[in-house]
């Protein structure tokens, strides 16, 4: 790519129409072993450790305050979790209503 070309910002043609999914995070806290994979690799930094621990003494991920609607349902936290302790679902209309997101 020439220098001139690389200065042109390229945008997806359907950017205006593209819908970013909103995910809802589910955590099976008793399975977590605090490996940090999900928290570290979440692209939108949705997760943080819980102040409390589970029965085995591990801090588990929670949705950070203010990030309730930031999950993009990429599922990376789910797929990399060695303990199958976290997964996400795409927010339903009821979920969206609960979190005050415009469902349209």
């Amino acid at each position, binding site marked *: 790519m020439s220098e001139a070309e690389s200065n042109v910002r390229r945008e997806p043609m359907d950017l205006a129409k593209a819908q970013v999914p909103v995910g809802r995070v589910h955590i*099976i806290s008793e399975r977590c072993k605090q490996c940090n*994979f999900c928290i570290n690799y979440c692209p939108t930094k949705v997760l943080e450790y819980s102040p409390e621990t589970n029965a085995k003494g591990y801090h588990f991920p929670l949705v950070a305050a203010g990030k309730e609607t930031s999950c993009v349902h990429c599922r990376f936290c789910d*797929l990399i979790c060695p303990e199958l302790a976290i997964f996400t679902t795409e927010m339903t209309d009821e979920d969206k209503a609960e979190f005050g997101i415009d469902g349209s």
Partner: protein
Amino acid sequence: MSATEQIIHPAATVHPIDNLLRADRFPHILCPGCGIGTVIHGYAHAIAASGLSEDRHVCVSGIGCSGRAAGYVNVDSYHSTHGRALPFALGIAVHKPELNVTVISGDGDLTAIGGNHLIHAARRNVNLNVICINNFNYGMTGGQVGPTTPVGAKGSTAPRGAVEQPFNLPYLAKATGAAFVARWTVLHVREFQDAVLRAMNKNGFSFIEVLAPCPTSFGRANNIGDGLHEVEIYRERCVIENGAQNLEELDIDLIDASKPITVGNFVDIDRKPFIE
């Protein structure tokens, strides 16, 4: 109730893929930050994506931490003796060719104790999917060096660093006749699942090396503080090169930070399978 509490309520107790796993045995025995759980997780997703019912899948493993895999999947499985996962799996694949047989085991079990079985199963092109979890040492027994330990890496039997040249597993698999060969890491979750699915659909010997952290044994001996630290090494140094031809040059040197770690789906050829 705070918003944070709200979002996880009702707290989940079941993961969507739990039906393919022995979830009643969770939390599993593996250490925090160990990559083996991620591999088992990926295998379960590949089963779900395969379109075959669970009773068409079989999982065989050998001995070691990775050998625990057979005990955590909810398909017919067998936990064989040390190094003998492949001959046991070969028996199943030959007797019941309609089954999709996957071997999940560690680098020590598959390439040292069972090394001879590996090269001959590949040579015969038996229809098996081999997932070799490579954590560069014998984790379960305390971090002894094995045939995959990088030169210079420390282990309980090499306190000053390993001096022997390790195996380059994709090169070995290709040279001995495998029809599908890949190398990924536990960070490459989607690519790994895709490779397992391709292996399941391949009539022939498939070999997937997957790098996984063993923070308890290998990590501790080599100043790799935890599982995340090793996964960060993968993230910084992995280069994807699907179809790479120069496998003989693609050794992994986990210790030398200047060397890239090449991953990818390297080989996908059609060769006469053992059973047609």
